[in-house]
């Protein structure tokens, strides 16, 4: 069987594949992870669950999960509409796989789970379907990395993800995108939150891409459910990003906050959307978006939207777009920094991981990812 040929250790993965994954933030030493899954092109080539957590999580290719558990069908396409657009329809018709993550009731997964979706072939159209279910009272941190191998050049990635957060669960999900200049990307995802669930969603995109458009939605249906959606975006070399997120606050005392930092340089065009809808009088939400333009060729259009259908809901936003401040540069130069060093310190500061809702141990790791990917550009 093909299964037995699969590597049983990350070190058995072809070197050129593993190195690219590591460059985008995958931890090589998977004993530091609760589990690892790698999907390359159209195949899941590696799955491993840390012994410590074997009874608490299920982590496998989604196709295997569908075969193994008929009930998975009760979740599929429940919150993302399969007829939403041509991309959802394409993935609904045919997909190569993706990850299935099921965190069992009251499980406390103290190590992060990691998944890597890679495109290594030229001109590939990768179609992925992921599903994440966090049962009642469980908590977990997941790092999902989408990488394009440097030899793949032109490619497109369509990815659907559905997240289900049961009562009082906690999911901290960090997605890292690492594309290249000729990549077309269409993720479609949605999350649904039951009573007391907390969803922290962090998105990092620091390398160039041709065209990325996404607009994930979090439905805070449960009482006191809370979504925190953050992003750090670095657009350069003609990258077109149309990125936003929406939170729909249906539950009593549900809450959402969205924070984003976007840097646009060297001909990059960015549309930054954010939308919070409150349909309960006790809901509250805050949206913050800061954009930094580094040159005359770049462009940022910020579109914050607040919608309240019930009196009493509290929604607010702050948005700013501007260029890097001369006063800040001069200030740092009086501290013996060259102009170049001062600018990179300000940019690096602007991409502060502190805005992401990360546990402190993960914060360091994500900081390292930002260093890695920002340096590479």
């Amino acid at each position, binding site marked *: 069987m093909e299964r037995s040929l699969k590597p049983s250790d990350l070190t058995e993965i072809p070197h050129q594949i593993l190195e690219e994954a590591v460059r985008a933030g995958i931890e090589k030493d998977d004993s530091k992870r609760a589990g690892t899954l790698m999907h390359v092109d159209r195949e899941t080539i590696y799955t491993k669950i840390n012994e410590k957590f074997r009874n608490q999580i299920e982590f496998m290719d989604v196709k295997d999960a569908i075969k193994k558990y008929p009930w998975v069908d009760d979740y599929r396409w429940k919150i993302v509409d399969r007829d939403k657009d041509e991309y959802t329809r394409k993935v609904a018709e045919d997909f190569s796989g993706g990850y299935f993550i099921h965190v069992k009731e009251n499980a406390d997964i103290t190590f992060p789970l990691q998944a890597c979706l890679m495109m290594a072939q030229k001109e590939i159209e990768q179609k992925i379907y992921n599903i994440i279910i966090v049962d009642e009272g469980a908590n977990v941190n997941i790092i999902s990395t989408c990488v394009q191998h440097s030899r793949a050049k032109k490619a497109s990635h369509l990815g659907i993800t559905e997240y289900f957060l049961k009562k009082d669960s906690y999911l901290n999900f960090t997605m890292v995108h690492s594309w290249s200049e000729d990549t077309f990307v269409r993720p479609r995802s949605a999350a649904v939150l039951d009573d007391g669930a907390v969803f922290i969603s962090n998105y990092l995109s620091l390398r160039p891409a041709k065209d990325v458009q996404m607009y994930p939605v979090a439905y805070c249906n449960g009482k006191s459910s809370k979504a925190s959606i953050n992003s750090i975006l670095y657009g350069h070399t003609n990258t077109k990003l149309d990125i936003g997120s929406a939170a729909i606050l249906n539950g009593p005392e549900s809450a959402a906050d969205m924070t984003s930092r976007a840097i646009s340089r060297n001909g990059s065009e960015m549309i930054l959307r954010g939308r919070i809808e409150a349909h309960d009088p006790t809901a509250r939400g805050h949206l913050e978006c800061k954009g930094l333009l580094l040159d005359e060729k770049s462009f940022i259009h910020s579109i914050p939207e607040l919608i309240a259908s019930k009196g009493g809901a509290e929604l607010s936003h702050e948005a700013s777009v501007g260029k890097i401040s001369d006063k800040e540069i*001069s200030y740092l130069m009086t501290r013996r920094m060259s102009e170049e060093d001062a600018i990179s310190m300000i940019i690096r*500061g602007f991409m502060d991981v502190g805005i992401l809702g990360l546990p402190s141990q993960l914060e360091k790791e994500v900081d390292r990812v930002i260093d890695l990917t920002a340096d590479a550009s």
Partner: protein
Amino acid sequence: MYILRAENFGVRIGNRWILKDIDFRLKRSQIYVLFGPNGSGKTTIISAIAGLPGYEVEGKIFFDDKDITDLEIDERANLGISVAFQYPPEITGVKLEAILKRCLDKDPEDDFSESEMQMIESFKLAEFLNRDINVGFSGGERKRAEMLQMFFLRSELLLLDEPDSGVDVDTLKLMGEQLQKYIDDNEATALIVTHQGGILEYMDPKYACVLFDSSLQCFADPNRIAKELRQCGYQCCIQCNRKVTRPWNDH
């Protein structure tokens, strides 16, 4: 030997001359106090010496006899000129710790030495190390952070723009004593802009001047000038007959 010389020095912002035709010299190992009404150009003079953008400068400035008129900010900083800003900017995501390490010429991974840590603690800034520089700092906290950065830079010429404005009495004492000690230990020179002169009580400055009407108008003992200003304001100071035509140059 003068640490700083300005000749036919003038500064223009847009098409307005803020300072015109000034000559002055600063000696090594001295403390100079600069008084002047709001808007007279004190911050302008400091900014022009440091090379900050937005100022058209005429004439020449020499640091240690080297012409620095056309040098960049960091080149001047590297020669040994540092500034404590009246209004330092807030920089999101840039930590005080990171800047202090750059001032000390350390790598981000390097730790502070014991004596550096002591200095940070005496300025009551240990808890601020991981804060974004100046973001949410109170007025006095900013002033403390400015002075500490300056000490870590180990400069020879310290330009302090209102280091004592809005600062509590204990901090005044700390700043005044530390500054005096720094000057004595390093044979450095300080040019201190002050309105109330609070910091001077803990220091021993020799020279003072009043910037008024685009030029430097008086020269006398700082404590006397401070007293006179308190009594009758700038108008009367300007009429005082101790005015000299070439201030700061007769020593």
